[in-house]
C-alpha cells in the first residue's frame, strides 16, 4: 500500500514536471480549454438562471390576454368586446390594457409605452383591483412596502410620466425633466417625468414609459372606443384553458394567450436544444471537437520517443497510461475549475458582458440586469461530462496505442 501510494506520487510528480517542460504549449492548451469551459459554463449558467428568473417573475403576468387579430395582424380591440368577454361564464374580471411602441429617433431606441391597468378605460365591476386576490394567490407579494413605481398612491396624472431606468439612461433624463412627444395630430406634448422605475426591475421594465390614458390616446390618436388588448381573470385557475376556448368561440377574431404559454415561450428560447443555445453552443462544441481531434490524432515524435524511453527503462504500459491520465486530468480539471469560476463571475457579477452583443442585437436600449444565481450540481455535472471526460479520453487513446508497442520499436523509431 505504502509503495503503491509512493508510486502514484512519483507518477504525478513526473507528470507535473513534464507538463511544465512544455510551458508555452501547455499554457496555450490550458487557456484554450478554459475558454471553452468558460463559454459553455456561461451559456449554461445564463440560460438556466434567466429561465428560472423568467418563470418566477412572469408568474405574475396575466392569466389570459385577449388580442384582436385582423388579417394576421394584432389590431386594436373594440371596447365592446370587453363586455362580451365579461359575460362568459367563468370570467371573474376583464381589464383593458393600453400599450404600444414608440421609436425615439433621437437615440434610435424603441420604448414600450404603457398605461397602468388601473388607469386604462376600465370596465371593472367595482373600483378595486379584483385580480390581486383571485388570480394571484400563488404570486408572492413583497413583504416590505417598497413600491416599484411610486406616485404616492395617487394615480398617474395627465401630463406626467414614469420612465424605466433604461429610458432614463438612454436620454440621460430623470425625475423633474420634461420629455417632448409629437402627437398624432401634430401637437407637441411636453410631459413631465415624475419618477423612474426601480433599477432592480430593469429586466422587465427597462424600456417602459408609463403614461396616463388620456395622454396615451392623444399621442397615438386612439379613440376611446378602442384598447390594445384585454386582461382576463378567471375565477377558477383550472379553467383557464376552457375560458380561453370559450372566448375564441364567442369572438372569432380574438386570440387568447394564456400565461402558461408565455412561460413556455421563455423556457423554450433558453432551452438546451432551442434557439440561443444552439447558436453559441454549436460553435463552442465544434471548437472543442477540432481541438480534441487534434489531440487524439497524433503524438509528436518527441512524445513517442519519451514513451519509448520510459518503456525501455522499465515502465509498464499501465504506468505510461497512468501518467498520461494524470496529465489529462491536471489540464482538464484546472481548466474546468477556472472556466466554471470565471463563468460564474461573468454571468452573475459582470452581467454577461461577453453575451451582450448577441443579446443586444441591433437594439440601442439594453437593460442592465443582475441575474439571481440559480446554479445546481446537475449543471456542473453536465458540464463536467461535456468537457473533462471527452478530453481525458482523447488524450489517453493515442497514448494507449503508442504505449502498447514494444519498447525497442519505440526506441528504434527515433534512437538509432
Amino acid at each position: 500500500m505504502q509503495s503503491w501510494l509512493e508510486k502514484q506520487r512519483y507518477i504525478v510528480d513526473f507528470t507535473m514536471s513534464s507538463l511544465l517542460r512544455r510551458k508555452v504549449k501547455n499554457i496555450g492548451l490550458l487557456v484554450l480549454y478554459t475558454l471553452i469551459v468558460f463559454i459553455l459554463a456561461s451559456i449554461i449558467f445564463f440560460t438556466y438562471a434567466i429561465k428560472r428568473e423568467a418563470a418566477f417573475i412572469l408568474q405574475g403576468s396575466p392569466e389570459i390576454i385577449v388580442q384582436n387579430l385582423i388579417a394576421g395582424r394584432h389590431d386594436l380591440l373594440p371596447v365592446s368586446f370587453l363586455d362580451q368577454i365579461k359575460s362568459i361564464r367563468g370570467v371573474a374580471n376583464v381589464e383593458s390594457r393600453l400599450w404600444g411602441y414608440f421609436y425615439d429617433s433621437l437615440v434610435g431606441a424603441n420604448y414600450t409605452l404603457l398605461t397602468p391597468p388601473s388607469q386604462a378605460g376600465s370596465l371593472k365591476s367595482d373600483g378595486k383591483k379584483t385580480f390581486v386576490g383571485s388570480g394571484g394567490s400563488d404570486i408572492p407579494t413583497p413583504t416590505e412596502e417598497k413600491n416599484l413605481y411610486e406616485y404616492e398612491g395617487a394615480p398617474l396624472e395627465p401630463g406626467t410620466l414614469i420612465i424605466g431606468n433604461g429610458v432614463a439612461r438612454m436620454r440621460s433624463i430623470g425625475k423633474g425633466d420634461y420629455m417632448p412627444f409629437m402627437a398624432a395630430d401634430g401637437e407637441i406634448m411636453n410631459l413631465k417625468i415624475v419618477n423612474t422605475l426601480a433599477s432592480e426591475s430593469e429586466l422587465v421594465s427597462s424600456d417602459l414609459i408609463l403614461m396616463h390614458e388620456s395622454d396615451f390616446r392623444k399621442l397615438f390618436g386612439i379613440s376611446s372606443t378602442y384598447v390594445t388588448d384585454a386582461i382576463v381573470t378567471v375565477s377558477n385557475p383550472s379553467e383557464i384553458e376552457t375560458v380561453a376556448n370559450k372566448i375564441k368561440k364567442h369572438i372569432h377574431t380574438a386570440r387568447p394567450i394564456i400565461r402558461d404559454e408565455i412561460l413556455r415561450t421563455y423556457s423554450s428560447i433558453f432551452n438546451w436544444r432551442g434557439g440561443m443555445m444552439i447558436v453559441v453552443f454549436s460553435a463552442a462544441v465544434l471548437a472543442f471537437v477540432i481541438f480534441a481531434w487534434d489531440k487524439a490524432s497524433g503524438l509528436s515524435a518527441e512524445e513517442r520517443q519519451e514513451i519509448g524511453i520510459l518503456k525501455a527503462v522499465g515502465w509498464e504500459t499501465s504506468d505510461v497510461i497512468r501518467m498520461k491520465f494524470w496529465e489529462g486530468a491536471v489540464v482538464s480539471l484546472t481548466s474546468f475549475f477556472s472556466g466554471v469560476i470565471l463563468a460564474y463571475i461573468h454571468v452573475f457579477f459582470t452581467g454577461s458582458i461577453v453575451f451582450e452583443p448577441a443579446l443586444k442585437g441591433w437594439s440601442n436600449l439594453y437593460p442592465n440586469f443582475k441575474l439571481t444565481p440559480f446554479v445546481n450540481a446537475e449543471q456542473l455535472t453536465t458540464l463536467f461530462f461535456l468537457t473533462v471526460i471527452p478530453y481525458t479520453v482523447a488524450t489517453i487513446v493515442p497514448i494507449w496505442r503508442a504505449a502498447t508497442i514494444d519498447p525497442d520499436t519505440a526506441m528504434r523509431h527515433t534512437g538509432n
Partner: protein
Amino acid sequence: MLSFLLLHASISRNAQTQNLQLKASLVHELGLTDLCLFTEARYTRHLSQADLYTAFQDHPLSLEHFPSGSFTEPNLSGIR
C-alpha cells in the same frame, strides 16, 4: 471549490428573493408579459405577444432581419 460556488449561489439567491418578488409584483401590477431583453423589434420585445407573421410585417423581405430574432421563436398560441 465547486461546493463553495454552490454555497455562494444559494446565499445570494436568498439575498435576492426580495428583488425577485418586487419584480414579480411589478409584472403583476402593470400586467406585463415579457422580459425586456431584446428591444430591437416588436416581435422580440414582446415575444409571447407576437404572432407568426410579425416578422414579415416589419418588412416584407424580413425573413429574419434582427439578430435576436434568429434565436427566438414565435408563440403559436391562438393562431393554430
